[in-house]
C-alpha cells in the first residue's frame, strides 16, 4: 500500500511539470500547445542519452534546452510564418519524432547500468526509500518558485498580458512575437524537464512516453483549478492548484491501476477534460433551456 502511495506521489510531482507547462501556455498565454507530447519525449531522449555518457545532472539542463528549442520552432511557425497555433504545434510534434529517434539511436534506451540523479542521492543514504520523492520534489519546488517569481517580473507580466488582452499588449510597448516565443520556450523546457526526470526515474526511455501527455497535463490542470482556484486568479494559487491537480490525477491513476481498469483510464481522462473545457458552454445551454421551458409554461397558462 505504501509503495502505491509513494509511486503515485512521485509520478504526481514529476508530471506536475507538464501541467505547469500547460498552465503557462494554455492558461496564461491562451495557446493550446501541441508540441507538448514531442517535447516530453525529447526530454526523455536527451536525458537518457546524456545519462549514458555519465552526466545525469547535466542531463536535466540539456533536456530543458532541447525542449526550449522545440518550443522556439513552434513559436516561430506561428508568430513569424503565420501558421495557425494548433497546427504549428502539430507540425513540430510530428517532426520531433525523427529528432527523438535520432537522439536515442533506437526506439528505446535503458539506463540500468548508468547513474541517475535518483541513484546518486540513494547512494548517500539520505531520506531512505523516500529519496526519489525528495529529488523530484526539490526540482519541482525550485521550478515552481522560479516560475512564480518570474511571472512577477516585467517580462513575466508582459507574457501574462499577452494572453489576457491583445489590444492592450499592442498599445503598451510589448512585442507579442517576443513574449509568445519566450512563453513557449519556457513551457516546453518544463515539459522536457518532466520527461528528463521520468527517463531517469524509470531508468528507461522510449519513443511513446510522451503520447497523450498534453491531455494528461490538461486533466491535471483542470482538476487542480476546480479543486483550488475555482475561478479565482492569482499566480501562486494557480501554481499550487496545478501541482495539487497533478497529485490528484496520479492518485486516481493509482486507484485505476489497483483495480485493473487502466484500459478505460484514457477514455475517462478524455471525457473529464472535454467536459471541463465544455462546462461554460453546457451551463449556458442548460440555463437557456430552463428559461425557455419557464417562459413556455407561463404562456400556456396565460392562454388557458
Amino acid at each position: 500500500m505504501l509503495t502505491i502511495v509513494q509511486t503515485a506521489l512521485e509520478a504526481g510531482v514529476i508530471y506536475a511539470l507538464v501541467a505547469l507547462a500547460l498552465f503557462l501556455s494554455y492558461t496564461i498565454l491562451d495557446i493550446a500547445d501541441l508540441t507538448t507530447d514531442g517535447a516530453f519525449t525529447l526530454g526523455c531522449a536527451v536525458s537518457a542519452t546524456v545519462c549514458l555518457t555519465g552526466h545525469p545532472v547535466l542531463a536535466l539542463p540539456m533536456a530543458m534546452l532541447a525542449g526550449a528549442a522545440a518550443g522556439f520552432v513552434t513559436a516561430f511557425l506561428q508568430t513569424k510564418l503565420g501558421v495557425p497555433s494548433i497546427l504549428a504545434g502539430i507540425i513540430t510534434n510530428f517532426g520531433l519524432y525523427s529528432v527523438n529517434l535520432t537522439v536515442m539511436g533506437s526506439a528505446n534506451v535503458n539506463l540500468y547500468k548508468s547513474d541517475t540523479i535518483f541513484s546518486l542521492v540513494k547512494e548517500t543514504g539520505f531520506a531512505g526509500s523516500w529519496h526519489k520523492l525528495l529529488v523530484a520534489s526539490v526540482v519541482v519546488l525550485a521550478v515552481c518558485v522560479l516560475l512564480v517569481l518570474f511571472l512577477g517580473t516585467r517580462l513575466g507580466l508582459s507574457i501574462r498580458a499577452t494572453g489576457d488582452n491583445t489590444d492592450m499588449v499592442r498599445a503598451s510597448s510589448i512585442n507579442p512575437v517576443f513574449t509568445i516565443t519566450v512563453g513557449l520556450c519556457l513551457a516546453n523546457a518544463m515539459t522536457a524537464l518532466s520527461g528528463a526526470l521520468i527517463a531517469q526515474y524509470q531508468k528507461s526511455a522510449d519513443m511513446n512516453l510522451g503520447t497523450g501527455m498534453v491531455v494528461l497535463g490538461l486533466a491535471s490542470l483542470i482538476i487542480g483549478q476546480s479543486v483550488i482556484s475555482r475561478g479565482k486568479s492569482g499566480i501562486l494559487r494557480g501554481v499550487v492548484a496545478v501541482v495539487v491537480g497533478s497529485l490528484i490525477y496520479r492518485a486516481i491513476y493509482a486507484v485505476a491501476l489497483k483495480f485493473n481498469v487502466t484500459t478505460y483510464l484514457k477514455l475517462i481522462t478524455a471525457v473529464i477534460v472535454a467536459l471541463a473545457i465544455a462546462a461554460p458552454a453546457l451551463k449556458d445551454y442548460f440555463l437557456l433551456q430552463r428559461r425557455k421551458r419557464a417562459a413556455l409554461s407561463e404562456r400556456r397558462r396565460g392562454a388557458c
Partner: protein
Amino acid sequence: MLKLSGVSKTFNPGTVNEKKALTDVDLRLERGDFITIVGSNGAGKSTLFNAISGVFFADAGSIVLDGEDITFQPEYRRSREIGRLFQDPMKGTAPHMTIEENLALAYLRAVKHQRAFFSRVNKEDKAFFREQLSLLGMGLEDRMRQPVGLLSGGQRQALTLLMATMVPPKLLLLDEHTAALDPGTAEKVLALTKDIVARQNITCLMVTHNMKNALELGNRTLMMDAGRIVLDIGGEERKGLTVEDLLSRFRAGAGKDLDNDRILLS
C-alpha cells in the same frame, strides 16, 4: 514634437473597396500642445491615430516624433513613447491581472537598464501606485489586489489613463476615450484627463464627437473630412469661438455640412 509630412494611406488599393483614408496629411505639434480633433464619419480621425501609433505603416510620407523618424518603426516600439486610450474601456487593461500588476506592467515599461526584463516593482513603487490611484478619487487605492475585470468601464478607463501617463509619454493619443461611458463618468474621466495632461505637460491629441469639449479643451482644434485636415484653429482665433462658428467654418472648409451621426452639439 510631432511632425507628419505628406502622410497618405489607402485601404484595399486597386479593388472596388478602395478607400483613401488619409490624403497627404501635414501636421505639426509643439511640445505641450493639446489638440482636439472633430470630423465627419469616416473622416480619417482614427486612421490618423493608427498611422501615428504604427498599427499600419503609411503608404507615403514621414512621421517624426521628437526628432526621431518613426515612419517604419513597428507598433510596439512606438508604444514606448506614445500612450493610447481607445473608446472601448476593455481594450486598455488586462482583466485577469490585478490593478497592481497592470500598473506594474505600465510602470516597468520605462526601466531601461540591462536586467530590465527581470525588473520587478518594490515597496516604494507600490506606495507610488497607491498615491497615484488615490488621485483618481475612485477608491481604487484600496483594491490594488483585485483583478481589473471587476472594475466598471469608467474605472477601467481612468486606470488606463493612469497607466498611459504614469511614466509621461512623449505623445498621448485619446480616441474618443469617454464616448462609451455614461455622461457623469465621462465628465469625471475628462476632468482627470485635463488635470493629468496639464500637470505633466503632455503633448496630446484627442478625438471627440462632443463639439463643446472640442472647443473648451486644449489649445488647438482640427477638423477632418475625407482623409484631410480641413480646418486648423488655434491661438487667438479659437478664443470665443462657438459651436455654430465652428460648424460654419467647417462648411466653408469642406464644402458641405458636418455629417456625423454621433456628434454632440451642446
